[in-house]
């Protein structure tokens, strides 16, 4: 009985047009999730939601969300996610759906997965590029990300790994954003 174990659900909020994602806030998300869990599992769900669940990370540009829940009850929360059809913020309703990318035991594993996933997205975007300038930009961004991982392998222990993990997540997301906005 050493510590409380949690499960972190890494989800992506998918919308039809990316600009409407900007309104996303962790408080709205928390409220929407709570409503969905209550609809699906009633009072029992509401009680479990109050003790265990928190929104740990939210990226309004790419729509990536990290939700923490207790290890025993994460399935309950996960089963309520597919039923969310819209998010409401200050009277504006955004039609969306949640796509769960990864379930991890710690934030760090989810971060590692997110870095890999963002790199994959960059590769996919390369296929969709129409102009040469966009292709060049994406190729440069992919190179930047790959160089970071090479540096990670050469670096020594935990702290430098943490920093480079965070850096690489931020970099890869920044790059994804740049390409999306262009």
């Amino acid at each position, binding site marked *: 009985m050493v510590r409380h174990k949690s499960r972190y659900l890494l989800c992506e909020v*998918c919308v*039809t047009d990316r600009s409407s994602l900007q309104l996303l806030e962790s408080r709205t998300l928390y409220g929407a999730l709570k409503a969905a869990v209550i*609809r699906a599992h009633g009072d029992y769900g509401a009680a479990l939601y109050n003790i265990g669940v928190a929104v740990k990370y939210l990226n309004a540009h790419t729509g990536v969300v990290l939700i923490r829940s207790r290890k025993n009850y994460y*399935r309950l929360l*996960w*089963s309520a*996610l*597919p*039923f969310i*059809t819209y998010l409401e913020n200050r009277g504006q309703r955004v*039609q*969306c*759906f*949640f*796509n*769960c*990318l990864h379930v991890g035991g710690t934030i760090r594993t989810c971060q590692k997965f997110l870095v890999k996933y963002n790199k*994959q997205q960059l590769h*996919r975007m390369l*296929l969709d590029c129409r102009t040469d300038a966009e292709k060049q930009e994406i190729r440069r961004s992919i190179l930047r990300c790959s160089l970071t991982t090479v540096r990670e392998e050469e670096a020594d222990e935990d702290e430098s790994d943490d920093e480079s993990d965070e850096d690489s997540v931020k970099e890869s997301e920044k790059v994804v954003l740049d390409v999306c906005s262009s």
Partner: protein
Amino acid sequence: MPVFMDLNIISSNDKKRLKSIIETAAHLGYSTVAINYVVEPQQKKQEFPKPQSVSDIFDKLPVVQGKSSPIKVLNRLTIIASDASHFRPTNEYKSFDLVAVYPTTEKLFHAACMTFDVDIICIAVAEKQPFRFKRAPVNGAIDRGVFFETCYAAAIRDNTMRRYTIANAISFVEICKGKNIIVSSGAENPLELRGPYDIANLGLVFSLSDGDAKAAVSTNCRSVLLHGETRATASGVVYTTKKPITPQKQEEESPVSKKAKTELEYV
């Protein structure tokens, strides 16, 4: 990474919508998708819709998330049958890769499980189950290799539909013990699709076991496709080896091998 399939995307005349649905499916990780043409025969002679060829919708198929191959798009026919005469295998059925039937009465359900030449039997989702499932026809269907399908799009749209879907699904799973079930979307627009792991979790809500729930989205769907192939080859033998046939070779081989027919369908 296992192969995920979504075998029910309602077809519409709006190509843009179909295109966006298939792109979303590729983004979520589905390797194969089937466009469903639903037919409700009311008169004696009914015209069947002709399946659109995939090149009409897409010039270049979107690549599946996590893999490097493009998404596969198939055609499927669903017949809503309220009378035994509605289902008559004709030549038009052959142009579809998969055939499904949606029985509305108990007699039809029994006939569909035991005798009809179908790949998929749909379970009612939008209404209270009009008849009870019995073990005998269900086991007969499982022996034959026919699969039962539940759609989840109705559950996402409406609260009361959600109750019917879950109730019907659970009562069915009790009878069939979790075998031969597939879960598919029945999506009419791209916001009604859900990722494959989310659907496997929904399977847990339907009281499927862990392995069965994942199989419902991956291996069982693949079995349905293979069953559809046996219908096409008409010999009951499933060809599992596929070698790449160059166009020259195709001209030489075409009168001889039956294999070329199924491979042409996938091109």
